[in-house]
């Protein structure tokens, strides 16, 4: 009996398989994959749109759902009651904050990036003075490593956007501020990676 049931099951599955193969839905999975790889996103989207009839759905408030919502609202415990269940301890009242504090928390930047670049460019021009050059390492060195890296990054943008030039004399590097930004319209002529090492920072005045 079990053998006959199993046999019937096999025949049933074969029948389902044959029905599927004979339908227009049958395409070999490997062929489908190949087709999908070869088609662009636009083509695939177009095929879907040609076969797609989206359902019309309208959402509305009904009297029953409004009653249910009202009942839920009325039976709901207050915020403080619900909070008690979580054992979160005393409740801190919300307090106001300001941009300065948010900047200290690093939620927002105190100054926009372009403004920072502008300030650094002015500082560079000031420090360059009559010599018109400043030692690269002396200029980027700050009170701590994080600030040094930030200044180095800003300087890299100053040079890329033509606010300053970087000159190499032997092992030393000098920054020369431009009076007016002189952007390289055809892109930067060269790229110069500068590793920020401890030795270089120690050598800087």
């Amino acid at each position, binding site marked *: 009996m079990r053998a006959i049931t199993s046999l019937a099951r096999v025949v049933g599955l074969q029948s*389902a*398989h044959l*029905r*599927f193969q004979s*339908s*227009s*839905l*049958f*395409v*070999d*999975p490997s*062929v*489908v*994959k*190949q*087709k*999908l*790889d*070869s*088609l*662009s*996103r*636009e*083509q*695939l*989207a*177009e*095929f*879907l*749109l*040609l*076969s*797609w*009839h*989206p*359902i*019309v*759905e*309208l*959402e*509305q408030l*009904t009297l029953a759902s409004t009653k249910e919502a009202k009942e839920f609202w009325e039976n709901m415990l207050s915020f403080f009651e619900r909070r008690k269940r979580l054992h979160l301890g005393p409740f801190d009242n919300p307090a106001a904050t300001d941009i300065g504090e948010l900047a200290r928390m690093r939620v927002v930047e105190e100054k926009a990036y372009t403004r920072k670049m502008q300030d650094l460019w002015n500082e560079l021009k000031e420090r360059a003075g009559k010599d018109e050059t400043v030692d690269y390492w002396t200029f980027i060195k700050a009170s701590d490593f994080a600030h040094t890296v930030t200044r180095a990054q800003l300087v890299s943008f100053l040079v890329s956007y033509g606010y300053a030039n970087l000159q190499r004399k032997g092992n030393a590097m000098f920054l020369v501020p431009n009076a007016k930004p002189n952007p390289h319209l055809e892109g930067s002529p060269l790229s110069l990676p500068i590793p920020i090492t401890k030795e270089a920072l120690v050598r800087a005045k």
Partner: protein
Amino acid sequence: MLFFKRGRVPGARSWELKTGLGKGYTKILERLDENLKDLDLEVKKVEPQTQSDFKHVPEAGEEESRYFVRLKGTLAPKEARLCGWRIDNLAALAAALAIVVSKQGKSERKELENVIGNKAGRWRALTLMDTFLRSGYLEEDEEGLVKLGWRTRAELDLPSLMTLLAESAGPSVEDGAPVDEDQASMEG
């Protein structure tokens, strides 16, 4: 009953319509279908699980059949965008459905994510799969296999999709290149 969404799934079941309209509800639906033609809409009956497992159980599912009102024609890409659909998402859905159909209605989630990933980027593939499952285009069964969902059965003309796919032009090198994350996320 058909137009307004009352629960998670839109439309109305046969027994709901029977209760509301009486035994002759099918005649009323036929009339409604006729009247909706002018608005380029139609009434669509979806039998439970017919497309997913390719088994027909007509009597058992009749009471549970669901009726929807859907667009009779199709949308242009511009109109689809206005409905909030991105080209990436449409392409990903087409790819996912094609794979599931070619695998006789069931496919592994990982495989679908890989195929979608080639079109929309790896990270987007994960979120798109969740979106398709949530919106009912795909369903995940107890074994973790992905099959066609109720919305696909209601909205998609799968034979047409598969025919278009089968008849599409052969591979071209530039189209086959995988998409990087930035490119995929730029599409508005």
